[in-house]
């Protein structure tokens, strides 16, 4: 143990004895002659403070009489009911903070989430948020239980894949076209399966949807053909694959 630490321990342990008068500076220094030089100034200060404490004690009877007076003063203070006590726990500023802080946090989170969803929805294959877009679509499908609504969603996502494909061609990302065409095919198959499910249950409901989807696919074939005629040769394989996918969809609907 270092000398400094030893002195600190003595100083920590002895004040109560000095304050109560059990020990004096000299009696302590006799016990620790080696450290007397270091201990003396601190012990003398403590001894002086012990004397000062005596001079600062309240006058006799003050505590007892002032206690009575304080209790009387408290008694005449207006009593608070439950709600007043509850509201008194916090200052008005604290209440405002307690209410405003969670609201601000929720609003901020909602804004961030909303902008994330919006960015994801506008993304096309190759964008960082594209996988988020696919997850959002899966969640939408998983939370839609009505078969007709589900069919509408499948058709909407199928159109979305075609739109993405067109955007990829316009952006010149030709290397991504085969993968995009495959996704178009997957979505189209899912839409056709959904149409089958709905027609098995109620053919009258499915009929207008089938007609509309068929027209959409036919339009898409024409649009893709025009796109092909205006695109460089390197884009042909991808576009032709997409045309085949859409045409097979039209055939299946017939």
């Amino acid at each position: 143990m270092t000398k400094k630490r030893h002195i600190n321990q003595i100083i920590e342990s002895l004040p109560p004895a000095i304050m109560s008068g059990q020990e004096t500076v000299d009696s302590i220094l006799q016990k620790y002659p080696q450290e007397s030089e270091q201990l003396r100034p601190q012990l003398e200060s403590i001894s002086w403070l012990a004397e000062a404490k005596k001079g600062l004690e309240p006058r006799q009877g003050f505590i007892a009489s002032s206690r009575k007076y304080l209790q009387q003063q408290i008694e005449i203070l207006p009593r608070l009911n439950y709600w007043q006590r509850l509201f008194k726990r916090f200052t008005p500023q604290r209440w405002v903070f307690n209410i405003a802080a969670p609201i601000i946090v929720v609003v901020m989170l909602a804004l961030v989430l909303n902008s994330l969803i919006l960015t994801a929805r506008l993304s096309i294959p190759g964008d960082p948020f594209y996988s988020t877009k696919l997850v959002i679509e899966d969640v939408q499908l998983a939370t839609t239980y009505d078969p007709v609504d589900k069919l509408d969603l499948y058709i909407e996502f199928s159109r979305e894949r075609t739109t993405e494909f067109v955007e990829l061609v316009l952006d010149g990302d030709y290397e991504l076209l085969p993968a995009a065409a495959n996704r178009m095919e997957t979505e189209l198959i899912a839409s056709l399966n959904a149409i089958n499910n709905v027609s098995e249950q109620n053919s009258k409901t499915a009929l207008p949807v089938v007609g509309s989807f068929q027209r959409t696919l036919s339009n898409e074939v024409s649009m893709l053909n025009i796109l092909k005629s205006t695109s460089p040769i390197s884009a042909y394989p991808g576009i032709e694959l997409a045309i085949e996918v859409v045409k097979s969809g039209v055939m299946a609907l017939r």
Partner: protein
Amino acid sequence: MPARLDKDHELIKRAQRGDTHAFGELYECHAPAIFRYLYAHLGSQMDAEDLTGEVFLKAWQSLPKYTQRGAPFLAFLFRIARNALVDHYRQAHRQESKSPEELDAYKDGSKLEPIDQIGNQMEHQHILKVLGNLRPDYQSVLTLRFISELSPEETAQIMQRSVGAIRVLQHRALFALRRELGTIGQDD
């Protein structure tokens, strides 16, 4: 110490339910320490007595806000006492145009005999003079640790420092006080 804390805990719960007798017991237990702390900073015993009452009245009014999971009750009281002292200094500053005799005029009602009052006042003035020449943080640490007899942990909570920092501060403050006593001894 834990026994005192347990007793405080029980009394505070009762006081928070509106039991004035329980608060009276808390007052009797802690008022001497608060009084000594205030008197070590103030020039008049009457001011220290008035402020002690004020501190406990404010404590009663703030009791619904007090949560026992936080700082100990004594730290809560000393924070109120520090704020009361600051307010008192501000008020005194505004009234400083008054002479000391005018400020002490209301002391006539004191129960002390005039001769005791003079002796006591001189001793007190000496304490104030010595402590007043120290740095404010030295003054606080010495008053809290040795005049109000708080533990290093309680002092640390009131002064919002670590226990280690309080020990270092106390060590320096004791040396500074010894030097100050030496200087005053030479002057006298």
